[in-house]
């Protein structure tokens, strides 16, 4: 193919401009595109609007670095390695970030709507909760609901006219500039094969205007096309591809490597303060590139995390991150 989709890690981060809206593959601490997240931090990206089905370690790294102005999602933390998002929590207290809360299913259905070209989704989740409290429309309070990329309303209520199913909440499609995915395999032309749970990757890839796929390996397109029914995302939904082995570290990748729990626990423990964050970033992000990051992590650590082929996870990794 003449029109190669290949780019470098640095170029991937450069596609994401100051002020872009952004979403990520994966789930909490699994398959997050951390190598690109690190590069965004190195490049001092500012004013990002994260729209995430749910947050995780990638959120905390970006928020701590001051890259994020708006976070629209439902959850942040590092699972058992850090039970909440200390950086987000700090920025919220300091009013340095706008947080818009939806429920997990609402966020998912918002992306599913966008992916199927619908302006909104209907659901019956979370009725009666403060998620639907009109006082808590934070993007509205911030005067950002202009109806272009950010919807005019946080939600609307209606009744089912067809079967009398009762109250429904309408939630707007998640319109997002760029989706950044981190997966096991991508073909030269952009076909993606995700192994294991695919989380909300198909929806975010289709919803975003630009989709960047970072893979453990770029494989011959023909190899993936031999079993088209095992592929997850089609070529034309992917704009740019890059190969970056261990690009999800410290988050995990099904079939490749486990979550680096000790790393996340250290991050969580040390980044409750901005000073702690800055020190962590100085050690692990700034002044490094992906290879020197891997070298700093070292072989013993990465071999510990390596997944067993028969099990798709590491039988050697001591869970709990101790």
């Amino acid at each position, binding site marked *: 193919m003449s029109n190669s989709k290949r780019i470098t890690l640095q170029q991937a981060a450069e596609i994401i401009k100051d002020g872009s809206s952004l979403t990520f593959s994966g789930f909490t601490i699994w398959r997050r595109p951390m190598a690109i997240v690190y590069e965004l931090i190195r490049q001092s990206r500012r004013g990002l609007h994260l729209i995430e089905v749910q947050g995780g370690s990638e959120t905390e790294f970006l928020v701590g670095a001051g890259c994020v102005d708006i976070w629209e999602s439902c959850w942040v933390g590092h699972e058992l390695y850090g039970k909440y998002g200390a950086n987000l929590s700090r920025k919220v207290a300091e009013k340095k970030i706008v947080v818009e809360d939806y429920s997990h*299913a609402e966020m998912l259905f918002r992306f599913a709507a966008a992916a199927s070209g619908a302006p909104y989704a209907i659901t019956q989740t979370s009725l009666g909760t403060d998620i639907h409290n009109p006082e808590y429309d934070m993007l509205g309070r911030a005067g950002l609901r202009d109806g272009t990329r950010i919807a005019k309303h946080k939600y609307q209520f209606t009744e089912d006219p067809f079967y009398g199913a009762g109250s429904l909440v309408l939630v707007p499609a998640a319109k997002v500039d760029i989706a950044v995915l981190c997966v096991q395999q991508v073909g030269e032309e952009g076909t993606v094969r995700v192994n294991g749970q695919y989380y909300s990757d198909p929806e975010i890839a289709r919803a975003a205007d630009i989709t960047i796929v970072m893979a453990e390996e770029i494989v011959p397109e023909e190899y993936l096309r031999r079993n088209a029914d095992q592929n997850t995302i089609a070529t034309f939904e992917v704009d740019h591809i890059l190969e970056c082995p261990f690009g999800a570290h410290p988050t995990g990748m099904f079939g490749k490597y486990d979550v680096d729990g000790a790393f996340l626990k250290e991050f969580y423990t040390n980044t409750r303060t901005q000073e702690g964050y800055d020190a962590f970033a100085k050690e692990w992000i700034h002044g490094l590139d992906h290879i020197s990051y891997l070298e700093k992590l070292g072989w013993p650590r990465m071999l510990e995390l390596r997944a067993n082929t028969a099990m798709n996870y590491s039988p050697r990794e001591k869970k709990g991150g101790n």
Partner: protein
Amino acid sequence: MSVYASPEEYGLADLLCCAASHEVLDNEIVFAGTGLPMVAIMLAQQTHAPNLKLIFEAGTLDGRPPEIPTSVGDARCEMGASRSSGLYDAFSIAQRGYVDLGFLGGAEVDRYGNVNTTCIGDYLNPELRLTGSGGNPDINSFASRTVFIMVHEKRRFVENVSYITSPGWRVKKWPGGEFVHRRELYGAAYRGGPSAIISTLGVFRFDEQDGHMYLDTCHPGATPDAIKTQCQFDLDISRVKGETPPPTTDELRLVHELLDPDEIFIPKTKKS
């Protein structure tokens, strides 16, 4: 024959895990969250509910993990499952009404079972931003029953939660915010609500009609009056059935030898 363990053989986490496990019926479809709930459900699967079907929010359907996953996104979820998919499937299945039981946690709860996992203090000027809703309101909205496992402190069993993250039996009707019975709002999606709160002091249930919490059983060592003082609202202790059954020795063996030998979620507090 099941033999109850003696008090020195188990810890509080064991008691909560086993009490939670007893909430599961056989053949049920259960939405399993990360942590202690996952151990409780897998314990039920090993004991009285061999045909229960596990759903993990991240996309695993009818999962049978050979070892305890560290979270619902874990690679361990997929092994041996009927289907590995994504969140669209998990939440669609829930909204479609397949889910009998969900297990959840919370930071605060009120008398109606409204649970908060979002923030402490005024939402617009929070003292502390917590982790957020996650799938808590979604699982709770759609399942026929939900069970919450919580630390019991007076500051957590409150008159009004700082933020209703997950709907109880009486919820706010917007835009006004007046409390109405959940049934009034949920229409076709109304299938039930919180069926039990398992705290570190006792097991609490709800009167479906008036939507109020009442004390069902006290954990060993706790009394109804003592528990009542640990609630900011006026807890109904008139319906107490007795003491929460302690774990059996079989259950303890399964938890510590088979399900969570590495003490990821349940510490071996009593060395034997």
